[in-house]
């Protein structure tokens, strides 16, 4: 069990792939913002890569263990300590009853840290997932971010704790962080020649887009693209702006919508359907990078990708998030 002392900026319970199969009822999948950091945290403590862990955005999370456990910390380096002694990232460690874990804030690179716990986080399954949907206020721990005096229960570890501690990753398995996140993307469904001009599509792929401060778990807003050129003078029956379309489903997670002149990436808790055009889609295997893009500081760049490459990248990610990555 883990007793929360300080919930920090935004700390939530998330698993992967989240809540799949409810898009047609307006329920997005939610799930870890960075499924690679969560996946590796889980592999380190002997869990399945999609098991629920603790996602810490920004920082300042603090909690006390009420039982012995094996944990791992991954993601951005928030200078975590255990009883005020620094602890390593990307490896599993044993913690004892009464130990206090404390995080500072996000580091030079990246924005979210994850805690994996041997046995996972024991919260009820809501529609097949332990993930928190903050905007719908359901799932995870009482449908909300963690706060002081909450108590999280742990599941049963896959092996005895002593055999799970001290596990490390191969150096090449630790993801590389940056301040410009390169995301592979597939064009569609609204591209040139009918929605944007070719120059408009080129603009999206050629430029780095700054992550805006008003981003959250449903949408990552990018810098306004005033030079973006549309192929239509207006949205016809859908509205006066050419980014307006008659409401259609969004390919969430990963759709890049054009809302007025603002490109917005729809992720975790985002809307499932709406009236803005969708120009491209970040491939499933690169979604994790969006979770590490620091609002107000980092940039996102899109790189053209084909369907075949995207399917191959899924296979590679599955290999990456497995025990094959252990040293």
């Amino acid at each position, binding site marked *: 069990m883990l007793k929360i002392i300080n919930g920090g900026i935004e700390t939530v319970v998330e698993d992967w792939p989240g809540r799949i199969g409810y898009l047609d009822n307006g329920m997005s999948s939610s799930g870890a913002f960075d499924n690679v950091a969560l996946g590796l945290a889980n592999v380190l403590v002997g869990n399945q890569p999609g098991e629920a862990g603790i996602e810490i955005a920004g920082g300042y999370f603090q909690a006390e263990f009420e039982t012995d456990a094996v944990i791992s910390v991954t993601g951005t380096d928030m200078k975590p300590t255990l009883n005020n002694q620094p602890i390593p990232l990307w490896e599993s460690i044993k913690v004892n009853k009464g130990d206090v874990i404390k995080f500072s804030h996000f580091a030079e690179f990246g924005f979210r840290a994850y805690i994996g716990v041997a046995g996972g986080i024991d919260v009820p399954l809501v529609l097949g997932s332990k993930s928190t949907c903050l*905007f719908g206020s359901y799932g995870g721990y009482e449908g909300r971010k963690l706060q002081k005096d909450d108590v999280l229960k742990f599941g049963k570890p896959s092996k005895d704790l002593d055999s799970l501690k001290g596990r490390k990753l191969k150096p090449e398995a630790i993801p590389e962080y940056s301040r410009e996140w390169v995301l592979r993307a597939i064009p569609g469904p609204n591209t040139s020649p009918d929605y944007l001009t070719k120059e408009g599509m080129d603009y999206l792929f050629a430029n780095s887009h700054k992550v805006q401060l008003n981003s959250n778990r449903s949408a990552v807003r990018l810098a306004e693209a005033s030079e973006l050129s549309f192929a239509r003078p207006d949205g016809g029956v859908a509205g006066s702006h050419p980014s307006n379309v008659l409401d259609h489903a969004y390919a969430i997670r990963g759709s890049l919508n054009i809302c007025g002149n603002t490109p917005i990436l729809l992720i975790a808790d985002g809307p499932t359907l709406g*009236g803005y055009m969708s120009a491209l889609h970040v491939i499933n295997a690169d979604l994790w990078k969006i979770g590490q893009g620091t609002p107000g500081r980092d940039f996102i760049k899109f790189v053209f990708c084909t369907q075949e490459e995207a399917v191959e990248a899924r296979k590679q990610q599955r290999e990456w998030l497995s025990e094959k990555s252990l040293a």
Partner: protein
Amino acid sequence: MDQKNYDVILDKLPEAESRPEVLFRQAGDGFLQVEYGSIPRFNLVDSFRVLTVNGAVKAKNIKGLYETVPGIRTNMFHFDPEVLSVKKLIEEIEEEENKLEHVEDIEFESRLISLPIAFEDSETKKAVEKYVKEVRPGAPNVINGYNIEYMAMCNGCSVQGIKDMVCATEWYNSGNGFWPGGGFFWPLDPRYAIVVPKYNPPRTWTPEGTVGIGGPCLYVYPTPTGGGYQLFGRTIPIFQFAQKHPLFKESPTFFKAGDRIKFHEVTEEEILYIYKHVHEETDYVYDIKTDKFKVKDWLEFYNKPEVQKEVQELLARQEAGTKAAPRV
């Protein structure tokens, strides 16, 4: 890579009988959008078709197909591309498309839900106030702190005219989406089809039960969320995750694809009273009637010369109004 391929149309079915052209658009790895007609149009016949084909494809239990998300003139297919190739999925959909020749023959069970609405209530006014303060100061779609005057301007009518139109028609749900349990509603009576542009950029907050219109589509916000529709009032709860009220016993959501709603004006006090009796007392009784919706009958009404004459008059007012209104 120098030559990027932005052509996302993977396949097409030609126009035939009552079916418009069908376009299969790439929408990501694991997503395919099926679109009806190459020129976007607002025609409910397309939605009747979407829901019918959707039901047939889902009944096939195709391995690797996670789910579908119907819209008014599109359907999104979400699948596992490692199990189901996009090519195979397109073949499966085309098979069902080819079986449905006459959309006029479609009949389906539909609920008619009567919903009270308080126009220009204080909660939705707060959402507009927050938008102007935090997102877009001086937004042209905000006049006297609200959107309804801008809506009236775009439609060449008065504020009262907007309220009358909202209450005059039944609104048909082409499918749920955006946020949990929210339906996308379209006017079944084309004489009252309000059209307005959406926010640019969208809001970050909208209260529970807010009613908004964007383009020609009406939406009830089930929970506090962002959003881009123009706001004019608030209705009663349509979502309850706690599932305490009997209406939400089976599911936390209320609306279903194919539902119709009809609004009637009440005071804000009455709306607040109902909130209490849905979420706390759990004894509010929703007004729901079920009957059969026949596409043939609706088309007959829609195509009446006197109806179409009024539609043309509305379109002319809207064209002039949109020209006069500031662009968002």
